[in-house]
């Protein structure tokens, strides 16, 4: 492959940025753009032209200001290996830790709090690959990152890392706002519910849950209450106990293991909650079956 790219890296200061590339393609190239998995968290912006890509098996047509966000295990490229005329820029971040259903840790360079990073990881896993239409802000941020790297002015390392954080926050916010705009709370709630089930052992807070459906926590609590009949935390406890009931009767795991797996910090806390909800202690429930 001999692409007309402008790699701006490697730079020793940015071990967490695997690639930062500007690509300007003046002619149709027939065999240069196969579907491939690049690894890393990849953010691709279309600057000019029109591209037809397969993104994780789904066909998408992309126009300027469209943004594609991929997890490390996801791939994209042209279904016919063709690179159309136009220009692109992309960045591939190398998080220190990120696997499906494992926590995301970007690295020390990021000032996003540990909890927010974890939440970001969960949102990426459940929503990526994402094709965000007309997200000009992301495009502009990527251009500013490029400019900083090129100009290498005073404290540009700090500035680049700040812009990276901003880029990621912009994408996550856009994602949850899209949820909100669908006027479909049941759908957003369903996605949240799946995310809760996927990491039942995580100490979820109402704020985190609210971010997932793209609203503030006060409005979120009201909406959940009106829709589900439960407060967000009670709904979560409900899922936890339902899963614990299944494990109690279908596995031989110890009560302590079940408690920790389903998000209770101690078997004492688990037993009290279980008794309060079901009328039985976990041990009694397991023995009597039912």
């Amino acid at each position, binding site marked *: 492959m001999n692409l007309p790219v402008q790699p701006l890296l490697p730079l020793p200061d940015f071990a967490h940025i695997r690639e930062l590339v500007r690509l300007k393609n003046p002619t149709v190239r027939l065999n240069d753009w196969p579907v491939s998995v690049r690894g890393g968290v990849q953010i691709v912006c279309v600057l000019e032209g029109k591209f037809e890509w397969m993104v994780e098996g789904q066909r998408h047509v992309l126009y300027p200001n469209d943004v594609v966000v991929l997890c490390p295990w996801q791939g994209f490229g042209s279904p016919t290996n063709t690179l159309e005329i136009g220009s692109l820029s992309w960045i591939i971040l190398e998080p220190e830790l990120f696997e499906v259903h494992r926590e995301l840790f970007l690295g020390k360079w990021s000032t996003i709090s540990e909890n927010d990073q974890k939440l970001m990881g969960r949102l990426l896993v459940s929503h990526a690959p994402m094709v965000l239409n007309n997200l000009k802000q992301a495009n502009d941020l990527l251009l500013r990152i490029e400019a900083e790297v090129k100009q290498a002015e005073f404290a540009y390392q700090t500035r680049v890392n700040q812009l990276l954080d901003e880029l990621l926050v912009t994408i996550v916010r856009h994602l949850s706002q899209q949820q909100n*705009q669908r*006027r479909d709370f049941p759908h957003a709630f369903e996605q949240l519910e799946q995310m809760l089930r996927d990491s039942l052992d995580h100490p979820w807070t109402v704020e985190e849950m609210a971010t997932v459906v793209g609203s503030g926590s006060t409005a979120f609590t009201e909406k959940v209450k009106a829709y*589900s009949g439960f407060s967000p935390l009670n709904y979560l406890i*409900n899922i936890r106990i339902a899963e614990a009931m299944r494990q109690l*009767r279908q596995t031989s795991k110890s009560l302590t293991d079940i408690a920790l797996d389903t998000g209770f910090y101690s078997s004492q806390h688990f037993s009290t909650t279980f008794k309060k909800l079901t*009328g039985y202690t976990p041990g009694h429930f397991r023995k009597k079956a039912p």
Partner: protein
Amino acid sequence: MNCIITIDIGTTKVKVSAFDEATNLIGWRQGTYPTFHPQPDYSEQDPEQIYLTVLYALKSLLNDELTKKHHPVAVVFGASMHSILPIDKHGVPLRNAVIWADNRGRDEANALKNSEEGKVIYEQTGTPLHPMSPLVKIRWFRNHTPATWFEKVYKFISIKEYIIYQLTGQLVVDQSIASSTGLFNIHSLKWDSLALDYAGIKPQHLSEPVPIDFAELKFKKEYVRLFRLSSATKVIVGASDGCFATVGAGVVTEGNATITIGSSGAMRVAGKQMIQDSQQRFFNYILTEGKYISGGPTNNGGVVFEWFVQQFGASGVHLDMEHTVKQLLIEAERVPAGAGGLLFLPYLLGERAPLWNANARGAYIGVNITHERRHFIRATVEGIIYEMFSIGKLLQQYRSIENLYINGAYATLPLFAQILSDVFGKTVYVNDKHDSASAGAALLALTHLGVFSDLEAAAQTIRSVETYQANAAHHAQYTRFAEIFDRLSYKLAEDFDALVALQG
């Protein structure tokens, strides 16, 4: 003061309500639970989560200050039909419950429908041969699970039976829910041997069928305590939500019909016999001995309008569904009846009655250059209602229908109600019970307690609070559109198949 507690276990939520002895609603609580789709065509629910949700809602209602002033004298259960849950001999679920919306048994259903055996089974059980039917689902398990798994199944029960079992330790099924399994002979009121043979099970694989007013149930003592009930509180098995909704709308005798449009919809009539339709287009469920609730279900009710709202509602504004629905309906009211000749086929989710065509798809047809967004809004509403009318016309070949009693979140919206009246050319009544299924359950309990002499007397106490009269000119016009609607629905079948093949 005494009160009745009704527990309605629906598809998306359980609703627990308290009624006084005059069937006035005192209070209610609800709790939702999700449906899982582990594969396309699969729809499953976690029985333990539903059970916990029932406990939570029940406990929360019974500890409410308002309810505490009343003494619960009876608890009665209603539930969605067609769910199936295999349990082992300890009563432990062997997997998640498979609910009515699950379509994995499509091939089994088609094969059975086209067989002589299927014809007899329908005549005996009254349940359409469709993937929703537990008969078909059990056959699917037989065909697609190892024999060793199938042997572990002690019983196949419904979600409602599971909840009652958890609360009482007793395994029984009411005749109403039983009659929706496709396995129950609605003439002899016993499990049907031909249907059991087809499913590959024996009567002992199913619970004991009991009449809907069966009250020999007792809550376990833990729950009597938890719910602050007395051991004298009657626990009544109850019926299906469809049968209860008909009772709660005041319809238990021939001559009238109920129309429900919530997310999906149905039109129902009551009668002394099942409707023997040679094309098997109607369901026939048992209310009580010699009383059948018959009718046709549609997939495409409010859910279709909500789809429209999500795609084409006012953009960029963060408004909730309810508000946007109202806004769009105001726009639709500004368009004359018939939507300027724009016609909509609402088959976004395939269709059950009367087409029974899973491949049916939606269409706007007759679009011309003068049509605006508001015409599309109105056409969408009218299309949903023409579909109901096509069920109604078929029902009227078997039953005379004087008046229509409507319920459900969408049917009772004023524009829907008026168009229903105009399309059918009949007077439409809306009663003061927002939740007919729960009201129906309360009426059964009150009848059992002797407050009413029978269900008919009980149903007569349902009062209408709103009435819609048909506009004759609109009716004449709608009748012509409805004819085109029916023709297109059948005529397009071949093209629906071709499009579905392309939709993959």
